[in-house]
């Protein structure tokens, strides 16, 4: 059974239909990527799955629960976590306090200290800056913090919305390495990217989103060698 199942999901903003009934699934243990150009509907997909924006029709099933109409904070308590587009770390809180917020959904966490230490171990830069106000971090550091924060809740499904956006090539590689590691440690990943090459390379399966519709799907390898994908997303 799939961990996440999206069926005919339709989302409108006023008169604009951003998602025209998309269906896809993410199985436990997979890395699945949605690739698509700017404005294709990737962020809308991510936000509507996790309950930040309402859908007009269709359904979202997660881990056996129908979460279509569930408010975001309850979905998060079911073990879904998201690194949002643009990182959105809490600028006024310190690095440490951001991690505390990441673990908000775990009640009376006895292993809280270990959890934080594990994030610091994974992201040594964050350990060095744990008492720094997050708003003063560099873009790369904020991305690391957003990822660390999202992992604090021990998600079953981690969703990342363009985590490589605005990062130097070196950092982009690091981000994809970290995603692979998270996945190896047992976290299922749904990734959204414009950086198609790198994301397809680490993906088990992928879907191509165009104008609010899924137009292509396959394994990461299949899509990497597909003529259409090469032309549109891999620069020839």
């Amino acid at each position, binding site marked *: 059974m799939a961990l996440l199942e999206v069926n005919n999901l339709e989302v409108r903003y006023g008169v604009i239909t951003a998602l025209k009934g998309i269906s896809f699934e993410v199985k436990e243990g997979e890395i699945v990527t949605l690739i698509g150009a700017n404005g294709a509907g990737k962020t809308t997909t991510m*936000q509507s799955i996790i309950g*930040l924006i309402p859908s007009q029709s269709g359904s979202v099933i997660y881990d056996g629960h129908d979460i279509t109409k569930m408010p*975001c904070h309850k979905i998060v308590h079911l073990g879904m976590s*998201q690194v*949002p587009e643009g990182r*959105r770390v*809490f600028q006024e809180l310190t690095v440490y306090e951001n991690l505390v*917020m990441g673990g908000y959904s775990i009640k009376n966490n006895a292993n809280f200290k270990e959890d934080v230490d594990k994030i610091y171990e994974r992201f040594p830069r964050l350990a060095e800056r744990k008492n720094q106000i997050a708003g003063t971090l560099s873009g790369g550091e904020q991305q690391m913090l957003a990822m660390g924060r999202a992992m604090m809740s021990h998600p079953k499904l981690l969703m990342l919305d363009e985590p490589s956006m605005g990062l130097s090539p070196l950092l982009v590689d690091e981000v994809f390495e970290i995603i692979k590691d998270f996945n190896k440690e047992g976290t299922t990943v749904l990734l959204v990217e414009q950086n198609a090459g790198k994301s397809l390379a680490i993906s088990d399966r992928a879907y191509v989103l165009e104008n609010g519709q899924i137009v292509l799907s396959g394994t990461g390898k299949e899509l990497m060698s597909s003529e259409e994908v090469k032309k549109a997303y891999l620069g020839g």
Partner: protein
Amino acid sequence: MKFIETLINGLSMGSTYAMIALGYTMVYGIAKMLNFAHGDVIMVGGYMIFVTMASLGNPILGLLAAVVFCVALGVTIEKIAYKPLRGASPLAVLITAIGVSYLLQSTAQIIFGSAPKMVNVADLGNVKFAGLTVPVYILVTLGCSMVIMLVLSVFVKYTKTGRAMIAVSEDKGAAQLMGINVNKIIMITFAIGSALAAFAGFFMLMKSPSLNNTLGAMPGIKAFTAAVIGGIGSIPGAMLGGMLMGVVEAISLTIPAIAPYTDAIEFLILIVILLVRPTGILGKKRREKV
């Protein structure tokens, strides 16, 4: 000496403004709305103190009753009047808040009449030290508010709920992604603001025993001004703005030539500060996101 007495009085008045300003600023920061009815919660608290003292004679019980009743009132107003308007235009919310304000004032008038009630909370006398003569109620007000503000600052900075409040005020969407129930945080914010308003009502009645249904109107507007001066949405800003307001008011009232214009002077300061710093002294620019 006289000046130091004026200053202490100003800080005490200022701490009352700060109590009220905190309610405005926290609700604004977290629910992104201007709770125009906040001043009237003070008035309701005042009547609770009046009723309790008339029946039980104890001012501390009066304060407790006011706190409990105001918290229940604040949370109820939020649930019935404001929550259904989440996502509505700010103008609709503002008009609703003004409506709530009139509703509270009119209800109080229907129940208690329009003639002022006298509430002699406690006659604490004066205390002399270091050549100063200071009414004890001033020191009580100052002391209590300092403790409350300290507790509030620690609560916001170090507790899970307090940090969640900062998170919600900064980015509601990201806060939800942490699993924070934004509606619950907004409710808690209204509860805290209303409890502070009850304390402010108590301090005001200690200062002057006359109580009518517009008790909270002018202090509410001044405290809102103080919140804007400090930077609306900022907790230390509300404390600073409130204190500033009280000190300016106290000093202005001791200078006969300008005393009659004290209110005008306070609002003038707001205008000047906003011209120099549109976000207020400690305010920051904010972006809005889903």
